[in-house]
Structure formats: C-alpha cells, structure tokens
C-alpha cells in the first residue's frame, strides 16, 4: 500500500519570499508523483508531475519539485511567491503496477501569502 505525508498543514509566507512545501511518500513499488493546487471553491488542478527522467520537474506558475528516491520525498518549491499563490496544495502518488491509476492524496498544505 502507498501513503503520502504532508507534515505542514499551513505555511504562511510573505510575498516575494521563497517557499517549500514538503511531501514524503511510502511505497513498496515505483510510483508516479504529482502536485495539485486547489483554489477556494474550485476543483484540483495539476501543477506538475514526475513520471521518469530528470528528477527536477518544472510546472505551471513558476513552481518546481525535486524527486528524491532515497529520501522518498517530492518537495514543492517556488523562489518568489505572489498573493495569487494562496491556495491549498496536495501531493499525490499512484503506483506503476496497477492496471489503472490509483491515486493517493496527502492531507494538503494551506499556503497563505502575506502582503
């Protein structure tokens, strides 16, 4: 079975400061990794994904994440945040062995960007 841990439930940060949202996962098989963003009263939207290849993945809105297999982590970073980045961010994994994708989501990190 797989599990996803997002240790930080809330992260406040000032505008234009850098931010890192942490994600650790547990799995006995290889997985695909994702970050989704959820703005208030909206569904989830894909930020970026790691399927294979380069461990540094770039996504939309200036976000990037680095896959670290030895530490089973997939932390999300942005060098300079904007007020509009205020949202909830979810890390998710899906194992590669199943016939269809079976996504497991973390509990989310609420990013609040302060002026």
């Amino acid at each position, binding site marked *: 079975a797989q599990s996803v841990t997002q240790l930080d439930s809330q992260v406040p940060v000032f505008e234009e400061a850098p931010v890192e949202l942490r994600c650790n996962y547990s799995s006995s098989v290889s997985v695909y990794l994702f970050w989704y963003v959820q703005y208030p009263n909206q569904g*989830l*939207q894909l930020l970026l994904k790691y399927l294979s290849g380069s461990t540094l993945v770039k996504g939309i809105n200036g976000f990037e994440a680095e896959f670290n297999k030895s530490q089973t982590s997939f932390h999300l970073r942005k060098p300079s945040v904007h007020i509009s980045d205020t949202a909830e961010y979810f890390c998710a994994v899906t194992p590669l062995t199943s016939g*269809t994708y079976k996504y497991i989501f973390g*509990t989310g990190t609420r990013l609040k960007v302060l002026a």
Partner: protein
Amino acid sequence: EAGVAQSPRYKIIEKRQSVAFWCNPISGHATLYWYQQILGQGPKLLIQFQNNGVVDDSQLPKDRFSAERLKGVDSTLKIQPAKLEDSAVYLCASSLERNANTGELFFGEGSRLTVL
C-alpha cells in the same frame, strides 16, 4: 475543450434525507473517479469506473452510498440516507485510459454537501 461538469454545486439536506450528484466527464475519458473531501483533509477515493465497469469501490460505504455510470459517460453518486458525517465536497475527476495517459486527473469544481 469542456472540462468536467458537476451539479449541483451546493446542497443542504437534513440527516436521513437522500441526495444525488451528477458528473459529466471530459469527452473521451474512459476513467471516472468520485472523491470525498472532508474539510481539512485530502480527497479520498470513493469509487473508480473504467468505462461503465467498477474498478475500485473498496472505500464506498455501500450501505448508504451508490454510484453508477450510464453508457460509460455520465455518472451519478447517491447517498441515502445521509448522515452528519457525510458533510463534505464530492469531487468528480476523469482521465484517459492508462496506456494513453500521462497520469493527469481532471477535476470538476465539486459538489458541497451540508447535512444538518
């Protein structure tokens, strides 16, 4: 391209009443998911369809929840009778078949249920 459509957006009911949610996935997407998102938690899978067949319903409370996907397109999720703990946002998502899929789920805006 139209996104995943869900209705209603909001629903308030008394406990023990019934409610139904509707989802229309992106055209051509074979896989459809219903997730339950309780306030402060991540989405939890309730049921996954591949075309009109059920792939995974292991976390669906079958004594009160039911779901169907007619003709492999639209889907409805029903709760009968509702309990207070069913208050949540019900998210529908869809994706292409695995062999054509880059892994992305496409989500609707969700249906927010409040049970009083």
